[in-house]
């Protein structure tokens, strides 16, 4: 379990604060939804240990995150930002290889099992042909796949994604979430995804946290997303849902 216990956090500028309570489980896809600027990414970064909360505790598999070393965290948890750019000429493979750093002493060379993990990860996200390409020249979708491969090569139990599908078209968005869902179940991983693709979240999420104004205002199963009043309050848009093969799917009323 990954648990955020009464967390609060404030940015230097003091204009925005976050308070959060969140539980994510293994083999599940936990989705954090909310409008722009609600604090979703901040909550995810807190969960990944990239930001330090000013109060409250975070538990990663029953161990306090604040007492773990960066290496220990990296061996259990991988974080994938929404966009990664490099100013230097790394190849795709060199980026994926970084996922193995936490398992290595400084001079310990990459052995056969590392190479295998890197190649499997690249193959899994269909990015094998990108391994020798200059990372700077890849499209944002291709860069995202390389970063996903890196997270897989990290062999962590927890994968945290910040807006992973921003640069993907609808077909690739659906495929991406299918892949995540399969990955969560078959590999027993805990996945947390921040997104504002609320329709897609309503199809794939096992568990949902709704964030508004820096607070987790509602969390629970996917069912909570079908509260029209709540959705209107948060997004300012009326949603309808339809039944497709017995599955409820959300879609916004454009109001034209």
């Amino acid at each position, binding site marked *: 379990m990954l648990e955020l216990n009464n967390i609060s956090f404030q940015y*230097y500028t003091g204009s925005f604060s976050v308070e959060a309570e969140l539980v994510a489980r293994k083999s599940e896809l936990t989705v954090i939804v909310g409008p722009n600027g609600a604090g979703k990414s901040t909550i995810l970064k807190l969960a990944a240990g990239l930001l330090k909360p000013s109060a409250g505790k975070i538990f990663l598999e029953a161990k306090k995150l604040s007492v773990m*070393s960066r290496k220990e*965290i990296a061996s259990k948890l991988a974080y994938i930002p929404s966009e*990664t750019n490099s*100013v230097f*000429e790394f*190849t795709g493979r*060199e980026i994926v290889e*970084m996922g193995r750093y936490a398992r290595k002493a400084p001079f310990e060379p990459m052995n056969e099992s590392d190479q295998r993990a890197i190649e499997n990860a690249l193959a899994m996200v269909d990015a094998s042909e990108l391994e020798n390409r200059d990372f700077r020249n890849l499209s944002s979708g291709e860069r995202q796949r390389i970063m996903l491969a890196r997270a897989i090569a990290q062999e962590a139990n927890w994968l945290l994604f910040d807006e992973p599908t921003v640069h993907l078209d609808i077909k690739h968005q659906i495929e991406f979430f299918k892949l995540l869902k399969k990955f969560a179940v078959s590999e027993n991983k805990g996945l947390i995804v921040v997104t504002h693709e609320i329709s897609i979240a309503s199809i794939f999420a096992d568990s949902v946290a709704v964030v508004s104004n820096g607070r987790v205002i509602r969390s629970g199963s996917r069912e909570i997303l079908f509260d029209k009043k709540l959705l209107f309050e948060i997004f300012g848009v009326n949603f309808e849902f339809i039944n497709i093969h017995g599955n409820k799917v959300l879609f916004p009323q454009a109001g034209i």
Partner: protein
Amino acid sequence: MKMRYKVYFVLLAIIWILAFFICLKVGAIEMSWKEFSKALIKGSDEEIVNTIIFNLRLPRLLLAALTGVALSISGLLFQALLKNPLAEPYILGISGGAGAGMMLAFATGISPILFGFSTLPLYSFLGALITIIFVYSFAGGHKNELHVNTLLLVGIALQAILSAFILFIQNILEPIDMARAFAIIMGRIPSLEWAQLSFVFFVTFLGIIPIIPLGRSLNALSLGDENALSVGISVEGMKRLIFLIASLLTGSFVAFTGIIGFVGIIVPHIARLIFGADHRRLIPVSIIGGSLFLMVSDTLARTIFSPTELPVGVLTAIIGGPFFLFLLARDGKKR
């Protein structure tokens, strides 16, 4: 390491060795290869030739090599930390800070000679360290909101301010003789006594040894702080180490050579073009390439207008300035 890189590396080493001997041989006093090799192997019959080679040219060549190492590695470290291939001790104002620290120590007379060594390098080191912390904080680095372009502007402004400050102090101390101030601002490589040179060797090793195992950490860091954290690198620790070591290397060398600009941009950039972005390769390549670059530059500086000498800082600025502008124009278009 891939085969291709091994070949390049061996070639670089061979060029280094050839350059070393050619640089040692050429100069205002000409000698034949035969005479030169005899002097190297068993000493020349003419005492003056031995003195020129072993007490003038060799210490100077070695200091040039070590300075090249220090400046290139400092540049490489700053570039990874700041995610900017234009970052470098001179551009960031750190060399200026070192020079100003040294000048202040001169002016106030607080730099005693301890155990036969001048304590000036300590002050230039402190000047460098204070400057880097100032520049970094000014550009928002301490709040995790680093503005990379602001950083370069602050550095360039500081470099101008600190150069003026150095000249100002010199003007108050000895208005007639400005040579010392100019020697700090446009660096040159002196022929040090062997005792001093061994101190410089020691400082260089002190700075380089902790860097050797950090190739992977620098790779991750050069993709961003969050990126480094998420693959298990302790970013705060790395930052402190880089500030300390780059200040140590830049600062203590400024005390001996004055400010030599742009080396830290040129060398790592060419290294990346040939060897890619992996710091496990870039660290050794910058060490060898940096020493090669400054050995050759300083030899050119002392021979082109022979018998008069050009400060090597003038030469690196003439090459490096346009190089900097070229990179700026190219990266500007990409943004």
